[in-house]
């Protein structure tokens, strides 16, 4: 009660001083304002069939065309998937898949041929796809050191604890962590077989596959003119064949800013995923990027997936504004649009039958 007791004291005090002015008797009357009296002008929607009918029709009418558009766009995207895991005996890569070790010095190569029955116009994106690979496992996801990748020298010498057990291999590991350690290391080469049988290698561009911000801001090599010198006191990840400064000969694509590496480091959301591997650029308007015909895919088979029953794929795809081929969104839009439209019809019926009883008579009379 102290509070109220004291409050009274205060009250007496206050009124004492204010009474002196004599202009107004102090009153505790609340202000008669719209806010305090909860009388602010308000919009009070009432959800009845009559009032929301148009909304349903509008949604239906907007969604169905969008859905159709999406569906058509998706269908126009050309995509081909070549699986080269080599689980079946018939598969050319069967042998490679059987005898595996992370650090075998002699690469195992296998060649797959496929036929493209439709020419791929415009730029073609070449992906590798893995399935059943849980790049999103909690401990896997956090097993990296972003400041090391950002070129921080301290982190280079002493990687984050999160990288355990891929943190030190006598010397600090660069790049540390499980993600880097398990980097995809198959090499894929594509050849076009001329109708006359000659094997033409298709130029694959390996730059521009990572996000621009990743390449230029997030990933940076440690300061130093010579990469080899910079990484001298570090060890390569256990599973890697080459150290990080030998990922590429091009100094713009070597070390931490190697784009294949950057792409791998952006961990996939779902266990079945694809990652951009190369881009096949459109030559000119006259010839398609990949004409109809026979192709061979040469795989330098390094990456083991048997332990988790994974699958490896090579995907060639053109892309549109909506990304890769996926009919789902278009179908979903069409379905939802139709449902809304149907509900609109039902509501119209209901409104006609019951709505009048409730409101229209009230309002019209």
């Amino acid at each position, binding site marked *: *009660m*102290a509070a109220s*007791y*004291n409050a009274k*004291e205060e009250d*007496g005090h206050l*009124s*004492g001083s204010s009474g002196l002015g004599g202009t107004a*008797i102090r*009153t505790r*009357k*609340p202000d008669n304002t719209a806010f*305090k*009296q909860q009388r*602010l*002008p*308000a919009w*009070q*929607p*009432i959800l009845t069939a009559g009032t929301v009918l148009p909304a349903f029709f509008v949604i239906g009418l907007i*969604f169905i065309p969008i859905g159709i558009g999406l569906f058509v766009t998706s269908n126009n995207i050309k995509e081909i998937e070549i699986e080269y895991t080599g689980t079946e005996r018939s598969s050319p890569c069967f042998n490679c898949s059987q005898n595996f070790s992370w650090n075998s010095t002699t690469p195992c190569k296998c060649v797959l041929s496929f036929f493209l029955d439709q020419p791929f116009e415009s730029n073609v994106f070449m992906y590798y796809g893995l399935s059943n*690979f*849980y*790049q999103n*496992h909690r401990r*896997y*996801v*956090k*097993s*990296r050191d*972003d400041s090391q*990748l950002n070129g921080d020298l301290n982190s280079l010498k002493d990687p984050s604890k999160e990288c*355990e*057990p*891929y*943190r030190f291999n006598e010397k600090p590991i660069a790049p540390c962590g499980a993600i880097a350690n398990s980097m995809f290391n198959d090499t894929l080469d594509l050849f076009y077989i001329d109708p006359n049988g000659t094997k033409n290698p298709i130029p694959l561009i390996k730059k521009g596959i990572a*996000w621009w911000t*990743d390449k230029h*801001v997030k990933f940076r090599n440690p300061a130093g003119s010579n990469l080899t010198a910079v990484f001298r006191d570090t060890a390569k990840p256990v599973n890697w064949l080459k150290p990080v400064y030998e990922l590429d000969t091009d100094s713009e694509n070597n070390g931490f800013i190697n784009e294949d590496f950057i792409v791998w480091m952006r*961990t*996939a*959301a*779902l*266990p*079945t*995923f694809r*990652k*951009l591997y190369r881009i096949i650029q459109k030559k000119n308007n006259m010839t398609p990027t990949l004409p109809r015909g026979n192709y061979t895919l040469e795989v330098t088979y390094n990456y083991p997936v048997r*332990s988790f029953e994974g699958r490896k794929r090579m995907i060639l795809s053109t892309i549109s504004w*909506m*990304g890769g081929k996926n009919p789902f*969104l278009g179908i*979903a839009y069409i379905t*939802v649009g139709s449902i*809304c439209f149907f509900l609109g019809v039902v*509501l119209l019926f*209901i409104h006609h039958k*019951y709505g009048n009883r*409730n409101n229209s008579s*009230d309002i019209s009379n």
Partner: protein
Amino acid sequence: MTWTNPLTLLWQGWARHRDRDRPIRRVVSNLPFEDLKKRDQPNRQYEGNTIKTNKYTLWSFIPMNLFEQFHRMANVYFVGLAILNFVPVVNAFQPEVALIPICVILALTAVKDGWEDFRRYQSDQQLNNMPCFIFSRKQMRLVKRRWKDVRVGDFVRVLSNQIIPADILLLHTSDPNGVCHMETANLDGETNLKQRRVVPGFSTLGKPFQPQTFSSTVVCENPNNNLNVFKGYVERPDKRRTGFGIDSLLLRGCTVRNTDDAAGIVVYTGHETKSMLNNSGPRYKRSKIERKMNTDVLFCVLLLFFMCLIGALGHSIWLETFTTMPSYIVPDRNGNYTPSVLAGFYMFFTMIILLQVMIPVSLYVSIELVKMGQIFFITQDVELYDEELDSRVQCRALNITEDLGQIQYVFSDKTGTLTENKMVFRRCTILGTEYCHDENAARLAVVSGANEEEEDTLYQQTKLPPLFPLEELQDSHTGDKNHANTQVTAANRRRSRVAAGAQSDMAFSTPLETVVVPDRKLMLEVDRQMASILSGPYLDFFLALAICNTVVVSTVTAQRERVKGRSNSAYSGGSFHIMGQWFRKGSLRNIFSSMKFFKRGEDTLADPFAKDEDEPDMFHSSDVSDSTTGQKVISSESEVKRSLSGTEEVCYEAHSPDEAALIHAAKAYGFTMVERTPYYVTVKLPDDTLLKFEVLDVLTFDSTRRRMSIIVRHPHTNEIIMYTKGADSAIMERLGNVFSDMSQVDNVAKQIAVKTQKDLDMYARDGLRTLCFAKKVISEKEFKAWFAIRQEALSAIDEKEERLLDTATYIENNFTLLGATGIEDRLQESVPETIQALRRAGMQVWVLTGDKPETAINIAYSCKLLDHEDLVFTFSTNRKSVCKMRLEDTLGELRRSSLSPGAEVQFRGNNSAFTLMEHSIGLVIDGPTLSMAMSDDLVEQFVELCKHCRAVLCCRVTPLQKSSVVKLIRQKLRVMTLAIGDGANDVNMIQAADVGIGVSGQEGMQAVMASDFAITRFKHLQRLLLVHGHWCYSRLANMVIYFFYKNVAYVNLLFWYQFYCGFSATAMIDYWLMIFFNLLFTSAPPIMFGIMDKEVSDSTLLSLPELYKKGQHSEGYRRSTFWIAILDAFYQSLVCFFIPYWTYNGSDIGIFSFGTPMNTVSLFTIILHLAIEIKSWTVLHWVIMIGSVLVYFIVTLAYSAICTSCNPPSNPYWIMHKQMADPMFYLVCILTTVVALLPRYTLHVLRGTLAPSPHLSARQLERLPPSHREQRIREWRGLRDTCISPSLRSQEHSSSPCPSA
């Protein structure tokens, strides 16, 4: 709130232990020891006068506040989670980040607590540093010190209008009679002055106070919190003992009035004073919704447990599928893999961390905020503001606002709650002759009529003279000249009360009560007796009326001075002040000598028949010149002075309004009490002679005896006479057969008694409060013998009450009946309407009163609690078997009538406009019967009967019974109860009920202090419950449900993802964004929703009380509502997860790019879900809703632009920008939001069209033009009231069931 830290508690415990050895406190003067060191001081063990109500000091704030906060379950849960984050095996992403939510919540609460504590500290400081005068031996005079310097044993002098710094035993006053007046408004809100007197033997008249001669020891009881009991004695050096009681104690916090100075020895200080011991902190109750919510939180815990279990099992099984470990499974630092079972076990805890938001801990903070907002709006309601008392509705309990919307049973006190508690003298019976006071009744009719209509105009027409010259004066001085004239309608309804209430707190002195028009016949009778002799039954009757009370006389100046002291301590017009001083001294001392002066004034009062009744001077003022000039504007102070001194303006300060009414009635017949001291009562007779009675003893009123007596010595006859007044039963059974040898006289006495009893019954039937008056002449010898025993009892410490009671009952017998009075207690305005509305809202209204059944029933009829067509059962018996039989009979009858449909139909057929039979049953039960009915074997039947009754009226119940009735109903029927009352006798009941409401009225503030909400008029209950209660309930219920939904919907997104990441507890949403999501992006809208949503407007709620039933039946928040919300949350989270999932499945999307659209979609869904629920959109709603979305985008964009390598592993750099550049992102967002909300939206639409709830219909009504609306509302009511045809009812089954259903 008195809070003491553990150390002081320990110290106090020890001190108390020491005190227990001596159950009494011995206090000696500090003066002889003034220069000694502290350890030599005799009173050193008593606490100082410093008060400290703040809990914390600067250094102890953080640990202590944290310690207190961890008493809450929710916080413990949160801390447990935070600690779990630091356990390595659970693999938390960033343990530090997990601390943020708990820190924010703790910090918010700490800031709030700290601020409150600081305010307490400030006010403590202010009090501790107030000045006071302490006697110093060294300087031989009073020195100015501060309150905190006061110690037990000091001598303190308090001047007029000063606040008393500690509990002081009064030893000296400037008053010749040794009295001191004290205003206890600060303590209990009672505005009448209390008289205190010097400890007998210490009032040295006229001499200055000499504390240095005080050598006695004061022995008194240890500190306790009883404001009305204090006992002890003063032991002089020669071992003589003088007893004293509460009437010699000046209480800390009270103000000295009417007395130039008072002095005494300090007995209790600081926290040991009675006022501080009475300080109890604000009450914390737990509301019904909160109780329900807590069980639902447990459901959430259960849900969380299951989800974590699924995660743990899933993870184990997933790990089992691998024969060799793939490269993406990370071994521990030694390169070993955890066995799958153990990994699953760890995963359980990791899952808890991931899904922790499932338990809506922020809900508790949000609810507190929402309730603060709701209370703000309740107290701001201008309709609940009382202009007369200048007070708003007070919310004393901070966390049960929504309980107001769920009340099912209302228990109301009668006096002061339903009625004004402004007693008006109506009629009396003397010696068996009834005087009906028709003229007075006529006057009251005029006043009350005007009350309802245009009283102000009436007053203006009659040109009322200034009733309260002082208030007018005050008005003109404060510049608000228009106070009485401009605020015409509401402010002037009881014009005089405005003046009296707002300005001077003058107790019980409106003209309505103070002015009594004498009955002609009675007046003649009195005149006749006056003319012949100076004694006689009529004279005795009026003398009893005038002196048998505890009313204190104060003069207008005293009143004025109080006004001055209150409003302006440094008044600019100094002359005014001086004049007041002069008059105060002058009036009290000289008033009796200036007889001539009174003669003139008295004429007008004594002979009122010379003038017309509506003549203004009838109303009060006796200054003839004033009354003829009409509405006089006081222009100068000299004139004021004349008008002041010209009026014989005695003001009576009565403890109870009954006494005020009686003394004014006596005054009307010319018997004016002009002075009361502890030793004398002076009464002026109609012929202007003054009778100065010596008061020998006063036997004060108590509820056991139910009467009070005063023993006086008649100045002329020297007889010792005891005048007694009391309840009729308390007097009638003690009427003596004094003249038993003279059978004839006995017969006459008997006849008088019988006649009086008849009249009393008649009064009671008319709803009047009755009091009997009796006298007894005591012989000198008898008195002396009795007085000795009495004195002994008075100075006793043990069993003092019992002994006093014994002595009182010993002397109070063999009365001679003088007569009886009937006092009317008028109903408050709009009481019948309010009761009707409450009842239409489905509430059962019970009235519990201490009055006699007849009076209570009458009031019950007049306030529409009972209807004349009602079937009223009256239970009043002294035998339990009878009670049992009646209960069984009645129940059987009721069961038969309600079970057999034939009877019902027949009943309806007979009276189709009538509601169901069970609705017209009233029960009247009196106290003794009630206690029998509530005994263990009958209680079930009684409760069953009560369930059938529309109205229950309990008469003659004690405060304890009131509370046990409330408890009984609350426990047996499991209903929400509300108790409303105004007096100390309602405190138990108010505390027993779920919601206690105090009416701040005439009977002090005890009820208000004990209450959860305090209002000023009964009619405010209607708005408080039907509007605010309903709003608060539906707002809070909706908000709580929404909160559960929100958390579950969001958390489930993460859960579904677990199926695609090997149950490894990965989150695809950045950790910071997850925290912000709850803390920042989606916290404001639901809080605003909880404070401001308005489903139905107040006017509609008031005109359709039936809408209240939603809260009563807990329709806003049921278990089913909760589960529907949870199901909806599951559905929405499925949609929010799987539409993006299928869209991005198989693509090259990264984890956190995948999470971004989900997070965004969730935000949209959650915000728009609320948008569907919001019933009324004001500007604020738009701002907050759109603001929340904007804040989300701004914060996310900024965050993902800045954070290059921070916050691993999510590393949100540029993710949001990248997503927002992708059209797919928008397409996914739009589609998902639509799909997620479609079912709820459609359901709302269908329900709104096919089966509109009453609330929806009410909202539709609001759209109609006013005239049309009225008609519809009437139709609606008609439909609801006559729920006759079953077919109609079945049609309406979806809407609120009829009261009969």
